């Protein structure tokens, strides 16, 4: 990055470039949606950690369902809510690969709670990226298990009432009680400092997986201006002013530590075959 001593043409330093692991396709997300930021962070981390040839992503039903159009890594679409089970099947068979599922409020906190809970309880060595925007976005803004009390959605038109619909679910705290969970952090992508913290959390979760530490989950509070019926900046402010009070940010659980990742079934045979093929 030297300057020409005569003060002529100068070298430029790239501060930020589109990650190579993002396909050229334009995102389908709404203006100001957090998914685009999270998608980008995932590809940045995988690229920086050199995991492009290892990573396998399980995509959900929901706004995140088109990840295979955006990610230049192996991606499989799961039935709604089943991502943690699909990821379990993949990781058990390919323990050396980085396997993560990407799930929204409905996918993990409603229909997929059993699969998520039990993958966590078994200490499956996978990472769940849990996008919490307090609503069901793809289907038009219905109430989610994470919807706040009094929050108006299309299926809670008078505001969420605890008598009828219970209270918002804090997945990180629920999973923290399970011995199989190794690392659980809640972050938010509503502002630059949050985005930076989110990237660090994703990186840490992936590293925990590589270390064989057990189940990791990053819960990411994400603005949904469309379903919240807010402007984009207003939605970001709402995450800070309202959502964070119910979903506190920070590391909910971190057992640290690591253990040797188990070998794949027949792993020795696979290696022998590889060396035969040369």
């Amino acid at each position, binding site marked *: 990055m030297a300057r020409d001593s005569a003060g002529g043409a100068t070298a430029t330093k790239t501060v930020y470039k589109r990650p190579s692991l993002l396909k050229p396709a334009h995102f389908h997300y709404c203006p100001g949606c957090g998914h685009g930021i999270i998608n980008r962070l995932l590809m940045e981390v995988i690229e920086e950690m050199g995991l492009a040839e290892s990573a396998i992503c399980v995509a959900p039903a929901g706004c995140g369902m088109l990840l295979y159009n955006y990610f230049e890594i192996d*991606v499989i679409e799961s039935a709604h809510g089943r991502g943690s*089970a699909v990821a*379990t099947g993949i990781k058990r*068979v390919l323990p050396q*690969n980085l396997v993560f599922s990407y799930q929204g409020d409905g996918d993990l906190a409603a229909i997929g709670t059993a*699969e998520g*809970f*039990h993958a966590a309880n*078994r200490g499956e060595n996978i990472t769940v990226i849990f996008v919490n925007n307090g609503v069901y976005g793809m289907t038009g803004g219905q109430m989610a298990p994470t919807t706040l009390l009094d929050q108006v959605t299309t299926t809670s038109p008078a505001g969420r009432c605890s008598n009828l619909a219970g209270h918002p679910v804090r997945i990180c705290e629920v999973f923290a009680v399970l011995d199989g969970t190794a690392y659980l952090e809640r972050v938010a992508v509503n502002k630059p400092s949050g985005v930076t913290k989110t990237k660090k959390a994703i990186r840490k979760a992936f590293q925990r997986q590589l270390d064989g530490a057990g189940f990791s989950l990053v819960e990411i509070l994400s603005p949904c201006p469309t379903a919240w019926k807010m402007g984009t900046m207003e939605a970001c402010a709402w995450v800070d002013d309202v959502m964070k009070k119910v979903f506190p940010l920070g590391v909910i659980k971190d057992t640290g530590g690591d253990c040797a990742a188990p070998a794949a*079934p027949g792993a020795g045979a696979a290696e022998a075959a590889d060396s035969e093929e040369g």
Partner: protein
Amino acid sequence: MKRLMSGNAALGEAAILSGCTAYFGYPITPQNELTEHMAKRMGESGGVFIQSESEIAAINMVLGASAAGVRAMTSSSGPGMSLKQEGISYLVADELPAVIVDMARGGPGMGNISPSQSDYFQATRGGGHGDYKTIVLAPATVQELTEIVPLAFELADTYRNPVLILGDGMLGQMMEPVDFDALKRPPDVRKDYILDGARGRPARSIYSLIFDAKLQEEHNWKLQRKFQLIEQNEVRYETYLTDDAEMVVVAYGMGARIAKGAIKRLRNEGQKVGLVRPITLWPFPMKLLQDLSATVNDFFVFEMSAGQMVEDVLLALEGKGNVHFYGRPGGVIPMPVELYRIVSRHYYQAQAARGGN
């Protein structure tokens, strides 16, 4: 070397010998011996075993393991099979191989744990959503499992489609001598679609969402062409004493064994009754029945259900001949002598209707 094993355990052993390295299952009677056998043997053979939290989780774990390239299997009974229907639809749409075992029991609802054949519709029509088919294999003896199980994995890999093994509680829990010596592990197939990390190749994706209706239609016709190939190439059945038969019983699985017992009695009395035992319930032996209807006027369908396969027999015959039916739903297992009496009555009535000949 012959061993005495339950059908469930023999099925599990045959699966391992066929190269199955991933099994996921949830306990449900009457197939628990299979899940337990896999728990023990997968541990010994270095494969993957998970007792999943539900049958839903199990079928989705199978989907993941299959996408990662291994031979994967799950098993259940009626209520659990209902839970798996969504996952089976996804497996077909994703064109992923898998073997799914149903040891059918009395239904509907909670039913009971007695053997029955009331999951025929669910298995052959597909209880999941969308236009799809799964190959359905119906073994009748524990020894036959040693041929059916490797065949199931082979067909699944060849056609990239789930294959159902439809048994029942009796087959699952009965103990019979079984010999694995002749079991041949199906050779591995090159799988250029699996997800194992994009090393030295472009990234792949497996999904079934296709927004554009015309493209989704294309995908559907592609699947249908596959099903047509299977219909052409994979029909399997057994015929027993059909050459001179004036009445042919159609039964499968344990129903066919009961029918054989009845037919032996009938033949002793000079009644010319034979048996068609479909081994593939889908693809159903349509052509065989059509061909038989040239010389046979009366077909007697026997099922341990209120009548499901009888519809396929009617479809196959296209109005030719007479179709008789006897069924016992709810887990009742009729003795051969009971079936013999009913078939006999129908046989003589049919004979009289033909004018005594």
